[in-house]
C-alpha cells in the first residue's frame, strides 16, 4: 500500500521524491512515506484532493529529534471505510539553527495548533502560519525543550528553574559525604 502511494505521489507531484519505508513486520511496526521537505504542501494538497486517496483529516503532527536531523511526521486519515485509512507522512529537517518548513494550514485547519506545538518543542518554524508563537511554554521561554541537546535555562523572570532546596542533592550525595567523613576520621586517627 505504501509503495503504491509513494509511486502515485511521485507521478503526480514532481520533485516530491516520495520514498516508502516499509517495515519488516507490519503487525508490530508502522510503515511511512518520506517526502522532500520543500514539497510537503504540494504533496498534502494532492493527497487531500485526488480521488484515490482523499485524506481529509490531519490528526497529528509529531516531531522527532534524531541528533543529526529532525523529522516531522504528519498523520493523515480519512473516515471512508473502503479507502486507505491512515498514512504517516514524514519530512526531514537538517538545519537546526534556522529550521523552517511550509505550513499546511491552508489545507488542514487542524495544523494551526499542531504546528505551533512542534515549533514550541523543536524550534521548527512554519512558513505562512498565521500565528507562529509558542503554545505550551511561556512566550518568553528560551530553548526548545524536546530537542536532545536542550539544557534548561537557569533563571526565568527572576525565579530559579532548578532551585537547590528541591533538588535533594544532599540525599543523593549522602554516601559520598559519609565516605569523606570516614576518610577524614581515619586520617585523624593515624
Amino acid at each position, binding site marked *: 500500500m505504501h509503495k503504491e502511494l509513494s509511486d502515485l505521489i511521485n507521478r503526480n507531484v514532481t520533485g516530491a521524491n516520495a520514498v516508502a519505508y516499509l517495515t519488516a513486520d507490519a503487525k508490530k511496526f508502522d510503515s511511512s512515506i518520506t517526502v522532500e521537505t520543500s514539497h510537503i504542501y504540494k504533496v498534502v494538497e494532492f493527497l487531500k484532493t485526488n480521488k484515490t486517496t482523499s485524506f481529509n483529516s490531519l490528526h497529528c503532527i509529531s516531531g522527532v529529534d534524531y541528533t543529526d536531523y529532525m523529522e516531522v511526521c504528519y498523520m493523515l486519515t480519512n473516515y471512508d471505510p473502503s479507502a486507505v485509512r491512515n498514512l504517516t507522512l514524514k519530512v526531514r529537517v537538517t538545519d537546526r539553527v534556522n529550521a523552517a518548513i511550509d505550513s499546511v494550514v491552508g489545507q488542514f485547519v487542524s495544523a494551526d495548533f499542531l504546528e505551533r506545538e512542534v515549533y514550541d518543542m523543536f524550534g521548527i518554524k512554519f512558513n505562512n502560519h498565521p500565528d507562529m508563537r509558542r503554545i505550551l511554554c511561556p512566550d518568553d521561554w528560551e530553548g526548545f525543550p524536546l530537542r536532545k541537546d536542550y539544557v534548561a535555562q537557569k533563571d526565568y523572570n527572576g525565579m530559579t528553574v532548578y532551585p537547590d532546596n528541591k533538588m*535533594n542533592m544532599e540525599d543523593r550525595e549522602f554516601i559520598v559525604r559519609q565516605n569523606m567523613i570516614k576518610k577524614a576520621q581515619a586520617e585523624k586517627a593515624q
Partner: protein
Amino acid sequence: MNTQVHHTSSVKEYFGGLWDGIYSSLKGMWITFRYVWAVAPVSIEYPEVREVLPERARMRLFNDALNCISCTQCAMACPVDCIYIASEKLPEGSEIKKTSNGQAIRLHLTQFTIDTALCCYCGLCTTVCPTECLTHSHDYEFSAYTIDSMKYDYLAPDIVAWRDRIVKA
C-alpha cells in the same frame, strides 16, 4: 454560528410552550424533592467517623528498615526518583541476620530516605521489593508545614516505632 430562532408563536404554541416549561421543571423538582425523605444520605461525618480504606489502598509508604536488604530495586523502579538509599559492606566477621522471610542481610543500610513530597503513590516500588518490607500503609493524614519535613528517614527511631502499628506479624 449561533442561530436564534425568532418567530411569533400562535396562542396554542405559546401556552403549550409555557406548559412544557412548567411541567418539565416541576418533574425535575419532584425528583430533587424525593431526596428529602427517600434517599439515605451518603456523607459521613469526618473526622468523627472515618472510612475504612480497602486493603490495597495506596497511602503513605512505610519501609521496615530492619528487614531491608538494600537491593535498591525500589529506588530504580521509582519513576520520580524520590527514594535515596545508601548502604555499606558489613564489617568482617559480623553476624548475618535474616529477614522475616528468610533472606540474608548482607549489607548495612545507612540511609533510607523517601521524599514523600515527590512521591506519586504509584506503588511501583512496593511491587519490586523482594522482602516486602516496603509497603503502603493506610495513613493519609500527614500534611506538614514545611517541604523539608516531608522527607522521611526510615532509620530514625520515631519512624521505626510505627512498625508495631503497621507491620502485621
